[in-house]
């Protein structure tokens, strides 16, 4: 039996991002399309960063998750255009990042992307907006390191791109 694409999307909503497992690949906004081509389920995925090491793992995880649901013919395709933006992270995804201790990216990325000093982050621990950037890169290419001037804790900020 062939599940409809909404059901498949629900399933994909349970596939975690390998680097930030608090958020799913659907929350991240990288699943661009799900559809049937004859008896093959095709999932279009857009990479976050060109060199993100998680990209290959994500494709494998999606395929594995769908096979576990009983789908036999699954194809994960890479879609390059339009390029991924952090604006595509869902509101649920942003909340999950925050709960996980990562400050979510500033919205309307096109206005500030590429310039860290144009972006601000509230501390995910105490909520203070009195924070400062420490370094443009964090534990992954997509994050920067910030510090809260009030509670003094360091934290990751998901850069707008």
């Amino acid at each position, binding site marked *: 039996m062939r599940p409809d694409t909404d059901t498949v999307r629900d399933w994909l909503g349970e596939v975690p991002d390998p680097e930030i497992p608090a958020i799913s690949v659907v929350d991240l906004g990288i699943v661009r399309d799900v559809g049937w081509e004859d008896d093959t389920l095709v999932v279009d995925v857009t*990479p976050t*960063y*060109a*060199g*993100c*090491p998680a990209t290959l793992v994500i494709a494998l995880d999606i395929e594995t998750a769908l096979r576990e649901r009983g789908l036999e013919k699954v194809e994960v395709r890479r879609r*390059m*255009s*339009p*390029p*991924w933006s952090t604006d595509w992270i869902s509101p649920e995804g942003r909340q999950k990042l925050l709960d996980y201790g990562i400050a979510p990216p500033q919205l309307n990325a096109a206005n500030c*992307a*590429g*310039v*860290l*000093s144009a972006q601000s982050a509230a501390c995910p621990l105490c909520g203070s907006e009195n924070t400062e950037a*420490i*370094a*443009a*890169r*964090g*534990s*992954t*290419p997509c994050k920067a*390191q910030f510090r809260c001037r009030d509670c003094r804790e360091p934290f990751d900020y998901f*850069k707008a*791109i």
Partner: protein
Amino acid sequence: MDSLVTFCLRMGDTTLILGQQTAAWCGHAPVLEEDIAFANMGLDLIGQTQLWYEIAAEAEGRGRTPDDLAFFRTERQFLNAQLVERPNTDFAHALMRQYLFDAWHLPMQEALCESGHEAIRDLARKSVKEVRYHINRSRDLIVRLGDGSDESRAKMQAALDALWPYAADLMATDAVEETLAAQGVLPDLARVRRAFEAETAATMARATLDIPANGHARTGGRTGIHTETMGYILAEMQQVPRSYPDARW
């Protein structure tokens, strides 16, 4: 070789060799944040390399994969600009090399966003977002260390003196670029040079560093002529796949 293949290799080889050089800082940079930053930037560059090699391999039509292009070509077959193969002498050199590259790479990627070649346009529109972050970091550090202590300024000036002549190789062009410009694949590259000159002049002024005025320029990397460091880089980068050519993860 086809002009499109040559151009994609010139771009991809340049990002690959810089990515390889940059990744070597992992575990060695003076502070943890910059250690992570260099390693992460190397990832971006190697990811972009993959995209350039995919376009090259498809245009070439010989069934080679991006890995074949990275690991099974010899020194004279690599078409990277000489700048990126200059050694990791110290943090100042690595940073200056990165900044000079970024000062060219950003306007180049911005120009390629208007390419008439769809795959190149898609690549550029993706990469340009990453490259903006690269120059945002390297420019900031050039200014902080140039306009810093006597020691940091002296180190940054020494790095600029050593590396500036090689920046010319990033912008060296020949019949390959002319052919692609005539086909609409490449935009007018003169504006990339103008953007590079404006960017570096403004930043070096803020950093209180002097751009060498002697006019020395080193070119040749984009036709396969390399400096003495290149063989060592390839030996390290290619050693495992050449020793075990059929190995799989």
